[in-house]
Protein backbone atom coordinates (compact mmCIF):
# COMPACT_ATOMS: atom_id res chain seq x y z
CA UNK A 1 0.00 0.00 0.00
CA UNK A 2 1.01 3.62 -0.33
CA UNK A 3 2.65 4.87 2.84
CA UNK A 4 0.34 7.08 4.86
CA UNK A 5 1.58 9.72 7.30
CA UNK A 6 0.39 9.92 10.91
CA UNK A 7 0.63 13.64 11.61
CA UNK A 8 -1.33 14.14 14.83
CA UNK A 9 -2.14 12.04 17.90
CA UNK A 10 -5.09 12.31 20.29
CA UNK A 11 -5.25 9.96 23.25
CA UNK A 12 -7.82 9.63 26.03
CA UNK A 13 -6.92 6.70 28.27
CA UNK A 14 -6.91 5.62 31.91
CA UNK A 15 -3.12 6.15 31.83
CA UNK A 16 -3.55 9.75 30.77
CA UNK A 17 -5.39 12.22 28.60
CA UNK A 18 -3.03 13.77 26.07
CA UNK A 19 0.07 12.08 24.73
CA UNK A 20 2.54 13.65 27.17
CA UNK A 21 0.77 12.46 30.33
CA UNK A 22 -0.09 9.12 28.73
CA UNK A 23 3.49 8.43 27.68
CA UNK A 24 4.96 9.47 31.03
CA UNK A 25 2.82 6.84 32.76
CA UNK A 26 3.41 4.15 30.13
CA UNK A 27 7.16 4.74 30.27
CA UNK A 28 7.07 4.38 34.05
CA UNK A 29 5.15 1.09 33.84
CA UNK A 30 2.36 2.32 36.14
CA UNK A 31 -0.89 0.40 36.37
CA UNK A 32 -4.16 2.31 36.18
CA UNK A 33 -6.42 -0.66 36.73
CA UNK A 34 -8.55 -0.29 39.86
CA UNK A 35 -11.86 -1.28 41.42
CA UNK A 36 -14.78 0.27 39.56
CA UNK A 37 -16.17 3.24 41.49
CA UNK A 38 -18.65 4.64 38.91
CA UNK A 39 -21.38 2.30 40.16
CA UNK A 40 -21.66 -0.55 42.62
CA UNK A 41 -20.02 -3.38 40.69
CA UNK A 42 -19.21 -5.65 43.65
CA UNK A 43 -21.65 -8.35 42.53
CA UNK A 44 -19.94 -8.81 39.14
CA UNK A 45 -17.38 -11.65 38.96
CA UNK A 46 -14.92 -9.10 37.51
CA UNK A 47 -15.33 -5.58 38.92
CA UNK A 48 -12.05 -3.92 38.07
CA UNK A 49 -11.28 -1.70 35.08
CA UNK A 50 -9.25 1.11 33.60
CA UNK A 51 -11.66 3.92 34.41
CA UNK A 52 -11.40 7.60 33.39
CA UNK A 53 -12.66 9.99 36.06
CA UNK A 54 -11.53 13.40 34.85
CA UNK A 55 -12.89 13.57 31.31
CA UNK A 56 -14.80 16.82 31.92
CA UNK A 57 -11.58 18.63 32.85
CA UNK A 58 -10.36 18.17 29.27
CA UNK A 59 -13.55 18.93 27.41
CA UNK A 60 -14.09 21.63 24.81
CA UNK A 61 -17.70 20.57 24.28
CA UNK A 62 -20.68 22.65 25.46
CA UNK A 63 -23.05 21.35 28.11
CA UNK A 64 -25.87 21.60 25.59
CA UNK A 65 -24.10 19.20 23.23
CA UNK A 66 -22.83 16.91 25.99
CA UNK A 67 -26.33 15.99 27.14
CA UNK A 68 -27.03 14.60 23.66
CA UNK A 69 -24.21 12.07 23.67
CA UNK A 70 -22.74 9.10 25.47
CA UNK A 71 -19.28 9.19 27.03
CA UNK A 72 -17.77 7.32 24.08
CA UNK A 73 -18.69 10.18 21.73
CA UNK A 74 -17.31 12.68 24.24
CA UNK A 75 -14.03 10.77 24.34
CA UNK A 76 -13.90 10.72 20.53
CA UNK A 77 -14.46 14.48 20.36
CA UNK A 78 -11.68 15.17 22.87
CA UNK A 79 -9.25 12.79 21.13
CA UNK A 80 -10.11 14.30 17.71
CA UNK A 81 -9.46 17.83 18.95
CA UNK A 82 -6.13 16.76 20.45
CA UNK A 83 -5.11 15.03 17.21
CA UNK A 84 -5.95 18.07 15.09
CA UNK A 85 -4.06 20.39 17.43
CA UNK A 86 -1.10 18.03 17.51
CA UNK A 87 -1.11 17.97 13.70
CA UNK A 88 -1.25 21.77 13.53
CA UNK A 89 -4.36 21.54 11.36
CA UNK A 90 -7.14 24.10 11.11
CA UNK A 91 -9.93 21.92 9.77
CA UNK A 92 -11.99 24.99 8.80
CA UNK A 93 -9.40 25.64 6.09
CA UNK A 94 -9.80 22.15 4.61
CA UNK A 95 -12.16 21.24 1.77
CA UNK A 96 -14.87 19.48 3.88
CA UNK A 97 -15.67 17.11 1.00
CA UNK A 98 -12.11 15.79 1.13
CA UNK A 99 -11.98 15.14 4.87
CA UNK A 100 -13.14 11.76 6.20
CA UNK A 101 -13.52 10.00 9.52
CA UNK A 102 -12.92 6.28 10.09
CA UNK A 103 -13.60 5.05 13.61
CA UNK A 104 -13.85 1.67 15.31
CA UNK A 105 -16.13 0.67 18.17
CA UNK A 106 -17.33 -2.64 19.59
CA UNK A 107 -20.28 -2.12 21.91
CA UNK A 108 -21.87 1.33 21.52
CA UNK A 109 -22.80 3.90 24.15
CA UNK A 110 -24.32 1.86 26.92
CA UNK A 111 -24.33 4.35 29.78
CA UNK A 112 -26.75 6.51 27.82
CA UNK A 113 -28.76 3.54 26.58
CA UNK A 114 -29.07 1.90 30.00
CA UNK A 115 -30.28 5.09 31.66
CA UNK A 116 -32.91 5.71 29.02
CA UNK A 117 -34.10 2.09 28.92
CA UNK A 118 -34.53 2.24 32.69
CA UNK A 119 -36.64 5.38 32.25
CA UNK A 120 -38.64 3.71 29.47
CA UNK A 121 -39.75 0.92 31.82
CA UNK A 122 -40.26 3.24 34.79
CA UNK A 123 -41.93 6.24 33.14
CA UNK A 124 -43.04 4.99 29.74
CA UNK A 125 -42.33 6.44 26.32
CA UNK A 126 -42.29 10.04 27.50
CA UNK A 127 -39.55 9.35 30.03
CA UNK A 128 -37.03 8.62 27.26
CA UNK A 129 -34.74 11.32 25.95
CA UNK A 130 -35.22 11.94 22.21
CA UNK A 131 -31.41 11.84 21.93
CA UNK A 132 -31.45 8.15 22.81
CA UNK A 133 -32.06 7.31 19.15
CA UNK A 134 -28.80 8.92 18.10
CA UNK A 135 -26.63 8.62 21.22
CA UNK A 136 -26.11 4.91 21.81
CA UNK A 137 -25.27 3.28 18.48
CA UNK A 138 -21.65 2.52 17.49
CA UNK A 139 -21.56 5.09 14.67
CA UNK A 140 -22.69 7.93 16.99
CA UNK A 141 -19.12 9.24 17.57
CA UNK A 142 -18.54 9.36 13.81
CA UNK A 143 -21.72 11.45 13.52
CA UNK A 144 -20.87 13.78 16.40
CA UNK A 145 -17.29 14.40 15.27
CA UNK A 146 -18.31 14.95 11.65
CA UNK A 147 -21.02 17.44 12.69
CA UNK A 148 -18.66 19.23 15.08
CA UNK A 149 -16.03 19.83 12.39
CA UNK A 150 -18.23 19.85 9.27
CA UNK A 151 -16.55 16.74 7.86
CA UNK A 152 -18.36 15.76 4.66
CA UNK A 153 -16.11 13.26 2.89
CA UNK A 154 -16.33 9.44 2.69
CA UNK A 155 -16.48 8.10 6.25
CA UNK A 156 -17.02 4.80 8.02
CA UNK A 157 -17.48 3.16 11.43
CA UNK A 158 -16.05 -0.34 11.73
CA UNK A 159 -17.70 -2.69 14.24
CA UNK A 160 -15.49 -5.77 14.53
CA UNK A 161 -15.22 -6.29 18.28
CA UNK A 162 -11.74 -5.55 19.66
CA UNK A 163 -10.21 -5.40 16.18
CA UNK A 164 -12.47 -2.48 15.19
CA UNK A 165 -10.10 0.47 15.46
CA UNK A 166 -7.06 -1.21 13.89
CA UNK A 167 -9.32 -2.18 11.00
CA UNK A 168 -10.57 1.42 10.81
CA UNK A 169 -6.96 2.61 10.57
CA UNK A 170 -6.16 0.07 7.85
CA UNK A 171 -9.27 0.97 5.90
CA UNK A 172 -8.52 4.69 6.28
CA UNK A 173 -4.99 4.16 5.00
CA UNK A 174 -6.26 2.27 1.95
CA UNK A 175 -8.77 5.03 1.21
CA UNK A 176 -6.14 7.77 1.42
CA UNK A 177 -3.88 5.68 -0.80
CA UNK A 178 -6.48 5.89 -3.53
CA UNK A 179 -6.47 9.70 -3.32
CA UNK A 180 -10.14 9.73 -2.35
CA UNK A 181 -9.52 12.20 0.48
CA UNK A 182 -6.92 14.68 1.77
CA UNK A 183 -7.26 14.06 5.48
CA UNK A 184 -8.79 11.40 7.69
CA UNK A 185 -9.42 11.33 11.43
CA UNK A 186 -9.00 7.65 12.27
CA UNK A 187 -8.99 5.47 15.36
CA UNK A 188 -11.55 4.29 17.86
CA UNK A 189 -13.33 4.81 21.16
CA UNK A 190 -14.99 2.65 23.79
CA UNK A 191 -16.80 3.26 27.10
CA UNK A 192 -17.61 -0.15 28.59
CA UNK A 193 -17.43 0.76 32.29
CA UNK A 194 -21.22 0.70 32.71
CA UNK A 195 -23.48 -1.85 34.46
CA UNK A 196 -24.84 -3.56 31.34
CA UNK A 197 -21.64 -3.43 29.28
CA UNK A 198 -19.68 -4.87 32.21
CA UNK A 199 -22.29 -7.61 32.53
CA UNK A 200 -21.88 -8.51 28.84
CA UNK A 201 -18.11 -8.52 29.17
CA UNK A 202 -18.42 -10.78 32.22
CA UNK A 203 -20.80 -13.11 30.40
CA UNK A 204 -18.24 -13.37 27.61
CA UNK A 205 -16.16 -15.12 30.22
CA UNK A 206 -12.63 -13.98 29.56
CA UNK A 207 -12.27 -11.31 32.27
CA UNK A 208 -9.87 -11.50 35.18
CA UNK A 209 -11.53 -12.14 38.56
CA UNK A 210 -8.46 -11.04 40.48
CA UNK A 211 -10.47 -8.19 42.03
CA UNK A 212 -8.37 -8.01 45.18
CA UNK A 213 -5.25 -7.16 43.20
CA UNK A 214 -6.40 -4.83 40.42
CA UNK A 215 -2.97 -3.55 39.44
CA UNK A 216 -1.56 -7.02 38.88
CA UNK A 217 -4.75 -8.57 37.45
CA UNK A 218 -4.11 -8.17 33.71
CA UNK A 219 -1.25 -10.58 33.00
CA UNK A 220 -0.92 -11.29 29.26
CA UNK A 221 1.15 -14.39 28.45
CA UNK A 222 1.86 -15.06 32.15
CA UNK A 223 1.42 -18.50 33.72
CA UNK A 224 -0.89 -17.00 36.35
CA UNK A 225 -3.11 -15.13 33.88
CA UNK A 226 -6.85 -15.42 34.38
CA UNK A 227 -8.25 -13.14 31.70
CA UNK A 228 -8.18 -9.51 30.62
CA UNK A 229 -9.42 -6.31 32.26
CA UNK A 230 -11.64 -3.84 30.42
CA UNK A 231 -10.73 -0.19 30.01
CA UNK A 232 -12.27 2.90 28.47
CA UNK A 233 -10.93 5.64 26.24
CA UNK A 234 -10.21 6.75 22.71
CA UNK A 235 -7.25 6.90 20.37
CA UNK A 236 -7.57 9.03 17.25
CA UNK A 237 -4.93 10.19 14.78
CA UNK A 238 -4.83 12.42 11.73
CA UNK A 239 -3.78 10.63 8.55
CA UNK A 240 -2.57 12.33 5.37
CA UNK A 241 -0.74 11.32 2.25
CA UNK A 242 3.01 11.79 2.69
CA UNK A 243 3.25 14.25 -0.20
CA UNK A 244 0.66 16.55 1.35
CA UNK A 245 2.13 16.20 4.86
CA UNK A 246 5.59 17.11 3.56
CA UNK A 247 4.25 20.00 1.51
CA UNK A 248 2.78 21.60 4.62
CA UNK A 249 5.87 20.78 6.73
CA UNK A 250 3.85 18.57 9.06
CA UNK A 251 5.54 16.54 11.77
CA UNK A 252 5.27 13.02 10.34
CA UNK A 253 5.31 10.94 13.50
CA UNK A 254 5.19 7.60 11.68
CA UNK A 255 3.83 6.06 8.52
CA UNK A 256 1.32 3.25 8.11
CA UNK A 257 2.77 1.03 5.41
CA UNK A 258 0.88 -2.25 5.52
CA UNK A 259 -2.42 -3.74 6.61
CA UNK A 260 -3.83 -7.24 6.66
CA UNK A 261 -7.01 -8.83 7.95
CA UNK A 262 -8.46 -12.35 8.04
CA UNK A 263 -11.13 -14.34 9.88
CA UNK A 264 -10.77 -17.68 11.63
CA UNK A 265 -14.31 -18.77 10.63
CA UNK A 266 -14.32 -21.34 13.41
CA UNK A 267 -16.36 -20.28 16.45
CA UNK A 268 -18.60 -17.35 17.39
CA UNK A 269 -16.51 -16.48 20.48
CA UNK A 270 -13.19 -18.27 20.58
CA UNK A 271 -10.28 -18.04 18.15
CA UNK A 272 -8.76 -20.90 16.22
CA UNK A 273 -5.94 -22.16 18.44
CA UNK A 274 -3.57 -22.91 15.56
CA UNK A 275 -3.04 -19.19 14.79
CA UNK A 276 -2.95 -19.90 11.06
CA UNK A 277 -5.36 -17.17 10.05
CA UNK A 278 -3.70 -14.61 12.32
CA UNK A 279 -0.38 -15.60 10.73
CA UNK A 280 -1.92 -15.01 7.32
CA UNK A 281 -3.11 -11.53 8.39
CA UNK A 282 0.38 -10.69 9.70
CA UNK A 283 2.00 -11.93 6.48
CA UNK A 284 -0.55 -9.96 4.47
CA UNK A 285 0.37 -6.77 6.35
CA UNK A 286 4.12 -7.40 5.87
CA UNK A 287 3.65 -8.10 2.16
CA UNK A 288 1.50 -5.00 1.85
CA UNK A 289 4.30 -2.97 3.44
CA UNK A 290 6.97 -4.79 1.40
CA UNK A 291 8.80 -5.43 4.66
CA UNK A 292 10.56 -8.72 5.38
CA UNK A 293 9.77 -10.28 8.78
CA UNK A 294 13.39 -9.91 9.93
CA UNK A 295 13.16 -6.14 9.45
CA UNK A 296 10.50 -5.77 12.16
CA UNK A 297 11.99 -4.27 15.35
CA UNK A 298 8.99 -4.52 17.66
CA UNK A 299 5.69 -6.39 17.94
CA UNK A 300 2.76 -4.83 19.82
CA UNK A 301 0.84 -7.85 21.05
CA UNK A 302 -2.93 -8.24 21.33
CA UNK A 303 -2.46 -10.16 24.61
CA UNK A 304 -5.92 -11.09 25.84
CA UNK A 305 -4.47 -13.06 28.78
CA UNK A 306 -6.61 -16.12 28.00
CA UNK A 307 -4.99 -19.44 27.18
CA UNK A 308 -6.31 -20.01 23.65
CA UNK A 309 -5.91 -16.39 22.58
CA UNK A 310 -2.35 -16.01 23.87
CA UNK A 311 -1.12 -19.36 22.61
CA UNK A 312 -2.68 -18.80 19.17
CA UNK A 313 -1.05 -15.38 18.95
CA UNK A 314 2.38 -16.72 19.87
CA UNK A 315 1.93 -19.59 17.41
CA UNK A 316 1.01 -17.15 14.62
CA UNK A 317 4.08 -15.00 15.29
CA UNK A 318 6.33 -18.07 15.21
CA UNK A 319 4.77 -19.19 11.92
CA UNK A 320 5.63 -15.87 10.28
CA UNK A 321 8.90 -14.96 11.98
CA UNK A 322 10.41 -18.40 12.57
CA UNK A 323 13.51 -18.34 14.78
CA UNK A 324 13.59 -14.55 14.58
CA UNK A 325 10.49 -14.51 16.86
CA UNK A 326 12.82 -15.20 19.79
CA UNK A 327 14.74 -11.99 19.26
CA UNK A 328 12.19 -9.34 18.22
CA UNK A 329 11.11 -7.35 21.30
CA UNK A 330 7.38 -7.81 21.93
CA UNK A 331 5.08 -6.38 24.57
CA UNK A 332 1.48 -5.68 25.55
CA UNK A 333 1.37 -2.21 27.16
CA UNK A 334 -2.41 -2.37 27.63
CA UNK A 335 -1.65 -4.55 30.67
CA UNK A 336 -1.22 -1.15 32.41
CA UNK A 337 -4.61 0.38 31.65
CA UNK A 338 -6.93 -2.35 30.43
CA UNK A 339 -8.18 -3.56 27.10
CA UNK A 340 -10.06 -0.73 25.42
CA UNK A 341 -11.96 -3.25 23.26
CA UNK A 342 -12.90 -1.50 20.00
CA UNK A 343 -10.39 1.27 20.71
CA UNK A 344 -7.55 -1.06 21.72
CA UNK A 345 -5.82 -1.37 18.33
CA UNK A 346 -5.65 2.39 17.76
CA UNK A 347 -4.29 2.96 21.26
CA UNK A 348 -1.72 0.22 20.69
CA UNK A 349 -0.62 1.92 17.47
CA UNK A 350 -0.31 5.26 19.27
CA UNK A 351 1.71 3.65 22.07
CA UNK A 352 3.99 2.11 19.46
CA UNK A 353 4.49 5.45 17.69
CA UNK A 354 5.40 7.08 21.01
CA UNK A 355 7.83 4.23 21.61
CA UNK A 356 9.39 4.93 18.21
CA UNK A 357 9.70 8.61 19.03
CA UNK A 358 11.38 7.98 22.39
CA UNK A 359 13.43 4.90 21.39
CA UNK A 360 11.78 2.97 24.17
CA UNK A 361 9.78 -0.24 24.24
CA UNK A 362 6.88 -0.06 26.69
CA UNK A 363 6.63 -3.10 28.93
CA UNK A 364 4.09 -5.82 29.63
CA UNK A 365 3.61 -5.39 33.34
CA UNK A 366 2.66 -8.41 35.47
CA UNK A 367 4.42 -10.83 33.15
CA UNK A 368 6.52 -12.83 35.63
CA UNK A 369 6.79 -16.25 34.05
CA UNK A 370 5.72 -16.67 30.41
CA UNK A 371 3.24 -19.44 29.76
CA UNK A 372 4.08 -19.37 26.05
CA UNK A 373 7.76 -19.45 25.29
CA UNK A 374 9.44 -18.39 22.10
CA UNK A 375 8.99 -14.59 22.12
CA UNK A 376 11.33 -11.87 23.37
CA UNK A 377 8.91 -10.47 25.95
CA UNK A 378 9.75 -7.03 27.33
CA UNK A 379 8.57 -7.44 30.91
CA UNK A 380 7.97 -5.14 33.86
CA UNK A 381 10.14 -2.20 32.75
CA UNK A 382 10.49 -0.22 29.55
CA UNK A 383 13.59 -1.00 27.53
CA UNK A 384 15.67 1.42 25.49
CA UNK A 385 15.57 0.26 21.90
CA UNK A 386 15.41 1.89 18.52
CA UNK A 387 12.24 0.97 16.66
CA UNK A 388 12.19 1.65 12.93
CA UNK A 389 9.52 -0.80 11.85
CA UNK A 390 6.81 -2.27 14.04
CA UNK A 391 3.91 -4.68 13.79
CA UNK A 392 0.65 -4.06 15.70
CA UNK A 393 -1.73 -6.98 16.21
CA UNK A 394 -5.39 -6.65 17.16
CA UNK A 395 -7.97 -9.43 17.35
CA UNK A 396 -11.68 -9.69 17.99
CA UNK A 397 -14.18 -12.25 19.21
CA UNK A 398 -14.80 -15.15 16.89
CA UNK A 399 -11.29 -14.83 15.47
CA UNK A 400 -11.24 -11.53 13.61
CA UNK A 401 -7.58 -10.86 12.94
CA UNK A 402 -5.96 -7.58 11.94
CA UNK A 403 -2.35 -6.46 11.66
CA UNK A 404 -0.77 -3.15 10.81
CA UNK A 405 2.81 -2.29 9.92
CA UNK A 406 4.06 1.15 10.93
CA UNK A 407 7.43 2.70 10.21
CA UNK A 408 9.50 5.58 11.45
CA UNK A 409 10.29 8.22 8.87
Amino acid at each position, binding site marked *: MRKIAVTGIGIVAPSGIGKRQFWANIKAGRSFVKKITRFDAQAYPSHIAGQIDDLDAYTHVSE*RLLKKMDAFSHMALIASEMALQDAGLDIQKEDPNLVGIFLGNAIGGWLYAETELRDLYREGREGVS*PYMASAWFPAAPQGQVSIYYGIKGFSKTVVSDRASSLMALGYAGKTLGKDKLNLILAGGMEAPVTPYALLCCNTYGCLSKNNDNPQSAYRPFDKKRDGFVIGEGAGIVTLENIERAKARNANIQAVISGYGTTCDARDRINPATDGKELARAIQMALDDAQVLPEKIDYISLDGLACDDWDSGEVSAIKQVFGDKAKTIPASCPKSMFGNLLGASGAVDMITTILGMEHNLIPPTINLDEPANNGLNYIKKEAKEYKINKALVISRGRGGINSALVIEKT
Partner: protein
Amino acid sequence: MEVKDKIRETIINLLKLKPQELKDNEKLCDGIGADSTELVELVIALEKAFGVKLTAKEITKFCSVNDIEKTIQSKLSQTVLK
Protein backbone atom coordinates in the same frame (compact mmCIF):
# COMPACT_ATOMS: atom_id res chain seq x y z
CA MET B 1 -45.15 32.44 37.41
CA GLU B 2 -46.30 34.02 34.14
CA VAL B 3 -46.74 31.67 31.17
CA LYS B 4 -43.97 33.39 29.23
CA ASP B 5 -41.54 33.20 32.16
CA LYS B 6 -42.23 29.49 32.53
CA ILE B 7 -41.66 28.91 28.79
CA ARG B 8 -38.41 30.84 28.97
CA GLU B 9 -37.28 28.91 32.02
CA THR B 10 -38.08 25.58 30.31
CA ILE B 11 -36.13 26.49 27.16
CA ILE B 12 -33.18 27.94 29.09
CA ASN B 13 -32.86 24.86 31.32
CA LEU B 14 -33.29 22.46 28.45
CA LEU B 15 -30.81 24.05 26.07
CA LYS B 16 -28.35 25.20 28.76
CA LEU B 17 -28.64 28.84 27.72
CA LYS B 18 -27.88 32.10 29.44
CA PRO B 19 -31.14 34.11 29.84
CA GLN B 20 -29.85 36.91 27.61
CA GLU B 21 -29.26 34.42 24.75
CA LEU B 22 -32.98 33.76 24.41
CA LYS B 23 -34.85 36.60 22.67
CA ASP B 24 -38.64 36.44 22.92
CA ASN B 25 -39.32 37.39 19.32
CA GLU B 26 -36.53 35.38 17.67
CA LYS B 27 -37.22 32.07 15.89
CA LEU B 28 -35.81 29.07 17.78
CA CYS B 29 -33.79 28.07 14.72
CA ASP B 30 -32.10 31.47 14.44
CA GLY B 31 -30.48 32.83 17.60
CA ILE B 32 -30.14 29.59 19.54
CA GLY B 33 -30.02 27.19 16.56
CA ALA B 34 -32.42 24.60 17.97
CA ASP B 35 -32.37 21.31 16.07
CA SER B 36 -35.24 18.90 15.44
CA THR B 37 -34.41 16.62 18.38
CA GLU B 38 -34.19 19.54 20.75
CA LEU B 39 -37.67 20.54 19.62
CA VAL B 40 -38.99 17.06 20.43
CA GLU B 41 -37.47 17.43 23.89
CA LEU B 42 -38.96 20.89 24.21
CA VAL B 43 -42.46 19.68 23.28
CA ILE B 44 -42.25 16.99 25.98
CA ALA B 45 -40.94 19.47 28.57
CA LEU B 46 -43.64 22.06 27.79
CA GLU B 47 -46.35 19.41 27.97
CA LYS B 48 -45.12 18.44 31.43
CA ALA B 49 -44.75 22.04 32.56
CA PHE B 50 -48.25 23.16 31.47
CA GLY B 51 -50.25 19.93 31.52
CA VAL B 52 -51.34 20.35 27.88
CA LYS B 53 -50.87 18.25 24.74
CA LEU B 54 -48.79 19.81 21.98
CA THR B 55 -47.91 18.55 18.53
CA ALA B 56 -44.58 18.85 16.77
CA LYS B 57 -46.30 21.01 14.16
CA GLU B 58 -47.34 23.51 16.80
CA ILE B 59 -43.80 23.95 18.11
CA THR B 60 -41.47 24.26 15.17
CA LYS B 61 -38.05 25.80 14.74
CA PHE B 62 -39.80 28.76 13.14
CA CYS B 63 -41.58 29.53 16.40
CA SER B 64 -40.43 32.19 18.85
CA VAL B 65 -41.06 32.35 22.60
CA ASN B 66 -43.91 34.74 21.82
CA ASP B 67 -45.42 32.26 19.32
CA ILE B 68 -45.16 29.41 21.83
CA GLU B 69 -46.80 31.58 24.48
CA LYS B 70 -49.77 32.22 22.18
CA THR B 71 -50.14 28.49 21.45
CA ILE B 72 -49.99 27.53 25.11
CA GLN B 73 -52.31 30.32 26.22
CA SER B 74 -54.81 29.08 23.66
CA LYS B 75 -54.46 25.47 24.90
CA LEU B 76 -54.83 26.55 28.51
CA SER B 77 -57.98 28.56 27.77
CA GLN B 78 -59.48 25.53 25.93
CA THR B 79 -58.73 23.41 28.98
CA VAL B 80 -60.50 25.93 31.24
CA LEU B 81 -63.54 26.04 28.88
CA LYS B 82 -63.80 22.22 28.93
